[in-house]
């Protein structure tokens, strides 16, 4: 249940293709058939465009006014021609429809033996939970930033069960050609079989507020035999050796994306800044005030709506059940250290 919202330039996934007109990597079972259809569409629409616009250019040249008293053709309609140009496009359209439909049905039917991974979207990060693992999967990307990580084995079907904690998001892996809205209050599903090793970007494609552009993640396709070890490595958040409590706290802070709403100095963002918070007397929305001690900070994280800071709206999600005691202690130590 740890993750982080991350500026796009720091995601660090290798470019998906070398030039803008190239197709994306065919990194999943869905990509190949889709690309075939995409190429067919491009060929048919491209030829149609050339025919229509070519005819237009030809007429533009041929029937340019020669003199004011040119005579023009009395043609007003032609039943056969009109039938032909209604029927022929209709045939092509049916081909596209059927092909698209068949692939769409496949996209919606995960095999029974798929690996299940739980995905949660929330402003503005993804959480990838693996059964039996204590924390969500993350990876360190550029400049020490931490990004949510989806580890999947190559050649095995994976099914994502997705929901949102706040507004609608949409889960999109361009390299896999899969996308599905992630809706609060219900589950939606995406499935795929990765076919190419490597790191690929994950985007949020349903507008969800301030940091929508930074609601990114990495999907990492690994060999099936490395899968277990990679998942284990990605789902551990513990105090490292030689790491101070505050340093670990900072990691936790980033991992749970507190910085998407809070600044580490005293300036306001979605929520109040933390600089100089500890020990000061905080005014609350109900007119009372409270001293910002350890208990208050703990309560603010676990039950954020219990006390609302004056001038703010109750937007903070609860982290109860997500942050364990060690992590919480480190987090509080870190907030205390911010001046």
């Amino acid at each position, binding site marked *: 249940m740890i993750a982080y919202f991350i*500026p*796009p*330039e720091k995601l660090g*996934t290798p*470019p*998906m*293709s070398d030039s*803008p*007109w190239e197709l*994306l990597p065919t990194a999943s079972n869905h990509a190949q058939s*889709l690309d075939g259809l995409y190429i067919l*569409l491009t060929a048919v629409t491209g030829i149609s*465009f050339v025919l*229509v*616009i070519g005819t*237009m250019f030809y*007429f*533009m040249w041929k*029937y340019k*006014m020669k003199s004011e008293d*040119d*005579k*023009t*053709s*009395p*043609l*007003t*309609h*032609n039943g056969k021609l*009109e039938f032909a*140009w209604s029927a022929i*496009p*209709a045939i092509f*359209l049916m081909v*596209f*429809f059927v*092909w*698209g*439909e068949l692939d*769409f*049905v496949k*996209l919606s039917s995960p095999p029974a033996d798929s690996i299940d991974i739980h995905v949660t979207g929330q402003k503005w990060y993804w959480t990838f939970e693996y059964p039996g693992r204590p924390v969500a999967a993350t990876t360190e990307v550029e400049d020490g930033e931490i990004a949510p990580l989806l580890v999947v084995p190559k050649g095995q079907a994976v099914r994502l069960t997705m929901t949102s904690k*706040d*507004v*609608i998001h*949409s889960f*999109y892996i*361009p390299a896999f*050609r899969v*996308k*599905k809205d992630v809706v*609060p*209050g219900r589950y939606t599903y995406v499935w795929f079989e990765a076919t190419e090793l490597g790191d690929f970007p994950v*985007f949020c*494609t*349903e*507008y969800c*507020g301030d940091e*929508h*552009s930074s609601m990114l993640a990495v999907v990492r396709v690994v060999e099936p035999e490395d899968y277990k070890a990679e998942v284990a490595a990605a789902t551990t958040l513990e105090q490292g050796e030689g790491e101070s409590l505050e340093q670990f706290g900072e990691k936790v802070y980033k991992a749970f994306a507190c910085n998407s709403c809070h600044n580490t100095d005293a300036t306001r963002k979605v929520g109040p800044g933390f600089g100089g918070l500890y020990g000061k007397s905080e005014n609350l929305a109900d007119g009372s005030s409270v001293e910002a001690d350890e208990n208050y900070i703990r309560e603010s994280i676990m039950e954020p709506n219990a006390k609302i800071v004056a001038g703010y709206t109750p937007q903070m999600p609860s982290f109860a059940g997500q942050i364990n005691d060690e992590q919480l202690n480190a987090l509080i130590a870190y907030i205390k250290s911010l001046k």
Partner: protein
Amino acid sequence: MSDDKNHEAVEPSYLTAKKGLMSWLITVDHKRIGLMYLAATMFFFLVAGLLAIALRTELFTGQQDFMSAQTYNKVFTLHGAIMVFLFIIPSVPAAMGNFVLPLMLGAKDVAFPKLNLLSFYIYCIAAIMLVMTLLLGSLDTGWTFYTPYSKSTGSAVIMATMGAFVAGFSSILTGLNFVVTVHKMRAPGMTWNRMPLMIWALYATALIQIMATPVLAITLFLLIIERTLNIGIFDPAMGGDPVLYQHFFWFYSHPAVYIMILPGFGIISEIITVHSRKHIFGYRAIAMSSVAIAVISFIVWGHHMFVSGQSELAGVVFSFLTFAVAVPTAIKVFSWVATLYGGSIRYTTPMWYGLVFLWTFTIGGLTGVYLGTLSVDVHLHETYFVVAHFHYVMVGGTVVAFLGGLYHWWPKFFGRMYNETAGKISALLVFIGFNMTFLTQFFLGHQGMPRRYYAYLPEYEVMHQVSTIGSWILALGLFTVLGTLVMALKNGERAPANPWKAVSLEWQTASPPIEHNFHMTPRVTGSPYDFPEIDKSAGAHH
């Protein structure tokens, strides 16, 4: 064709018949109301256009440059909301349509002139409400107001949705007025089959406005109720259904796409015929396809929701119906191109815009086929491909047609000719700028670049830069349009009553027209596309 009868010159035009500001503010003359709409919609086009340039400039690099994330989100929301509700929807029907519809019908005015003025003031109130959100400072939902996001964000949402709600009433009243006018006020001899295609297009649009807009109003009203009274309708936290909102919203907003584009089709049918001296090819097919589009447009809304979590079966049905709309649209494009055949093409500025329209709208239509295809849409949905597609339809289609219409009817509006060379330069700049801006975005889209991002991965930077430079050229082209039209008013040559030698009725009266349009009710004896140049002896059937 000799229409400069002497007594017409002595009677003052609608512009000079009454004087003073009040004579405009309380006018019930459809021409003056049309011009007031024109001024207002052009103003909002400028505002929303400048916002677009700001957005494109921010996107010149992948990082955040001069706008914060919040600012970017507010700017794209306002850009979309103003363009859709205050510019595109009213631009052709309410501004241009108001002016030309009664003239083309040979009528003295619309059926309900006072109601017409009321629509204009309702529109103004809506505009003020939408602009007020700027002061309230927190509208960042996108023009679609999706729930539950629109429930959780700042309070300006209520004001904005109220604005869109009120704008809807203006739209409904204009639609109602037009439908009655077309049914009741056609000149003697103007059978349905002798109506100019512009009228057919405005008629089909008006039908959609009357039938679809109430659904938007109800939807926005439910949104407001949910927010103010805390009744769970769309918000899952209160037992509502957020996807239901999308169904309601698109049930209006897909037909609304045709409210935006059908009038543009009408303009193009007029321009292409008049400036190539040809009868329209396939009159009946074009007229009927407008009506067919109007009807089918009500049952395709789900194609905006293929990945929303609606049932797979619904997705399949909506995809099928969407392809069904593609056919009448294709028929129109083919018919316009075929109209050029055997013509005598005059390369006037309106004609250039007509030809630019054929280019851009064809691209807009063809790329729609990608998005109607289920599996392909899963990949392209909510990426720049969609952004490029709808700008090709809305800007490359409606706005280009609107500009062509402005040049075409400007002499009729004001009795002044514009400068042809400057007009053609504007068309060239718009063509280059527009295609540079949006063609690149198809590539961004198929590469996976999501929309509504203020910062993006480095691999998308080159295409974004080409697009941004294109948007500056487009802006230059649009300012050239403004320049040529304003200059025409100041020192343009006096326009004759019928500079294009057109046959439809609006050209059979003075430029600018007299207050009551016609001295004597005109009689219609044939098709509006029966030009004197047409060689009747050539033997093709009618």
